[in-house]
C-alpha cells in the first residue's frame, strides 16, 4: 500500500511488435496534475490502459489509489474518470442517453451536474451523437470523465479535437478538479498542452521514464526556434550576444534563432527595433530530452532533419 495516486515499479508490458513498456517507474502524487508526455509510440497509452485494467502487465508492480487494477478493477474504476485517446460510442443515441447510461453504470450522477457541464462546454445533449462534430463528441467524452467528480482523472490526449477556446475551458476544469483535491493524470505528445495545467511533467520514451520535472523547470529549459520579422534591417551580431540565444541568422530582414529558457532578454533586445511579426515554435520534445542527456542546451546537436514538432 502506498499513499501515491499511481505508482508503478519496473512495469513491463510486451505486446505487438515493439510497443509496450520496458520497466516504467511512475509516481503520481495525490492531488497533483501530472502531465505524461512523450513521442507517439513511447508507451503513454499502454500505461493508461494498464491503469484502467484494459491491459494486464507482463511484469512489475502497479498500484492505483492503493489498489491493484488487475485485482480490484471494479472498485478502482468507481473512483476514476477516464477519457481514452479515441472517444468512440454508438452514434445513434443522443448525448443525454449516453451520459444517462454511463451515470447509471456509476450508480447515479446528479442530472444538474451533467447539464451544468454540457452548458459550460456548449454541447447540445438532445442531439444524436452521429450528427455532432468531432469536437462536440470529444466534449461528451470530457463530460463523462468529469461528471462523477472522481478521485483520479485519467485522460489520454484529452484536448485533441477541442478548439482553442474550449482548450481554455478544459484547462479551467482541470484547475478546478485540482482545487477540489482530485488527482489528474493526463498524457500528451505536445508539451504545451500539459504545460498550462500540470504541476509536474514526466517524459516517457521507448517505454521508460526519462525524466520527471516540475513544470517551471521545463519552461526554463525549453528550447524553441524563434523567427522575428523587422521593419528595418538588423544585424546578426546584435542578437548573437543575447543570453539564451544561439544559432542566429538574419535573412531578408527576418531573424532566425534558437531561444533557450526565458524569453525576456531576447524581447528586450528586440524592443529597440520595430518588430512586424513574431513566430515561436513549439519546444521540440526530442530536443528537450536531449537537454537531459547532455545537461545543457549548448551541447544540444541541431535537430535531425524531419524532426517533428507537435501541432
Amino acid at each position, binding site marked *: 500500500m502506498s499513499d501515491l495516486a499511481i505508482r508503478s515499479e519496473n512495469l513491463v508490458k510486451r505486446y505487438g511488435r515493439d510497443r509496450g513498456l520496458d520497466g516504467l517507474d511512475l509516481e503520481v502524487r495525490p492531488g497533483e496534475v501530472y502531465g505524461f508526455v512523450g513521442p507517439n509510440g513511447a508507451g503513454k497509452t499502454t500505461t493508461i490502459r494498464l491503469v484502467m485494467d484494459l491491459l494486464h502487465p507482463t511484469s512489475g508492480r502497479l498500484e492505483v489509489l492503493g489498489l491493484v487494477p488487475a485485482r480490484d478493477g471494479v472498485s478502482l474504476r468507481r473512483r476514476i474518470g477516464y477519457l481514452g485517446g479515441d472517444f*468512440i460510442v454508438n452514434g445513434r443515441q443522443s448525448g443525454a442517453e449516453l451520459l444517462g447510461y454511463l451515470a447509471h453504470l456509476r450508480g447515479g450522477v446528479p442530472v444538474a451536474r451533467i447539464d451544468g457541464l454540457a452548458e459550460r462546454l456548449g454541447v447540445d445533449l438532445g442531439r444524436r451523437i452521429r450528427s455532432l462534430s468531432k469536437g462536440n463528441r470529444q466534449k461528451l467524452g470530457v463530460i463523462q470523465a468529469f461528471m462523477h467528480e472522481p478521485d483520479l482523472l485519467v485522460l489520454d490526449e484529452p484536448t485533441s479535437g477541442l478548439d482553442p477556446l474550449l482548450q481554455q475551458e478544459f484547462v479551467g476544469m482541470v484547475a478546478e478538479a485540482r482545487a477540489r483535491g482530485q488527482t489528474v493524470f493526463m498524457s500528451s505528445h505536445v508539451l504545451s498542452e500539459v504545460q498550462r495545467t500540470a504541476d509536474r511533467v514526466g517524459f516517457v520514451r521507448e517505454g521508460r521514464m526519462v525524466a520527471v520535472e516540475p513544470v517551471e523547470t521545463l519552461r526554463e529549459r525549453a528550447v524553441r526556434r524563434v523567427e522575428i520579422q523587422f521593419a528595418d534591417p538588423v544585424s546578426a551580431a546584435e542578437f548573437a550576444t543575447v543570453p539564451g540565444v544561439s544559432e542566429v541568422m538574419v535573412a531578408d530582414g527576418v531573424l532566425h534563432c534558437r531561444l533557450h529558457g526565458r524569453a525576456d532578454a531576447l524581447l528586450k533586445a528586440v524592443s529597440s527595433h520595430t518588430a512586424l511579426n513574431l513566430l515561436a515554435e513549439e519546444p521540440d520534445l526530442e530536443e528537450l530530452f536531449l537537454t537531459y542527456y547532455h545537461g545543457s542546451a549548448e551541447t544540444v546537436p541541431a535537430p535531425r532533419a524531419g524532426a517533428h514538432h507537435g501541432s
Partner: protein
Amino acid sequence: MAVETLGVPRAPDAVTRTILTKTLWEARRSLIGWTLSIAGVGAMYSAFWPTIDTPEMQQAMAAYPKALLEAMSYTDMASPAGYIGSAVYGLLGAALVVVFTIAGGARAVAGDEEDGVLDLLLAHPVSRTRVALERFAVIAVELMVIMIALWLIMIVISGPAQLEGITAGEYAAAGIQLTLFGLAIGSVSFAVGAATGRRGWAISVASAVAVTGYLANGVFPQFEPLRWTRDVTPWNWFLGGAPLRNGLQMGDCGLLLAMTVVLVGLGTWAFTRRDIGV
C-alpha cells in the same frame, strides 16, 4: 415509449439502467426485422401445406433420391408435423436463427471491441464477467421474443392452413428446442469472439461448427463408419427427437443447454484474462 425530441428518439430512463436493457434498446429495430422475417417464414411455409398435402406432390417427393431427402431432413412430408418440423423449424427457420445468433454472438464482445466502443464501457465500474454475461443474455432475450412471435403465428395459422394434429404445446416444444439450439451455436461465436476479440474468427469458427454439425446430422451418417457423428451434433439434439411430434425432449435440451453453459463460461473466463483492443 420513446419520446421524440427534435427527431431524436429519447430512451426511457429505465432502459439505460443496465447493459442488458441498453443493448436491447439499441437493437430494437433490428429485432423487429428478425422477428418479422422468421415469423413470416413460418406463416409462408404453413400456407403451402395444402398444396404439399396432395397425392401428386407426395408422389413427386417420393421420386427424389432418399439420400437427398435425408440430407435435407425431408424424411416425412406426409404429415403436418413432419412437414412443418422440417421446413419451418428444421431448415429455413433454423438457418435464420443460426445466422442471427452467430452474428449476435460475434457482436456481443468482439464486434464492439473492434468498433472501439468496448473501452468506454470497461472503464466503468463493471466487471468483464458482467459485461460478457449481460451481452450474451441479450441474444437469449431477443431469441425468445422471436420464438414467441413464431409460436403465436403458428397457432393462429394452424387452422386455416389445415395443419391438423399439432398442439400449441408441441409448437412450444419445437420453439424451445430451436431457441436452445440457436443459443448453443451462438455460444460458439460468442466464446471465440470473447476469447480472441476478433469478429471474423468468431463468425468463421461458429459457421464451420454449424455447417459441419448439419452435415453430421443428415449426410455423414449415410456412410456407416460415420454414423456416430449424428450423436454429437447439436442439430440432432434439436431435431432428432422430433419435438413437434413428440414434445419437449429433456435429454436433448440438457445437451444443448450444457453446450451453451460450457462455451459461455469458457469464453467469459478467457475474456477476463486477456488484453482489450490490442
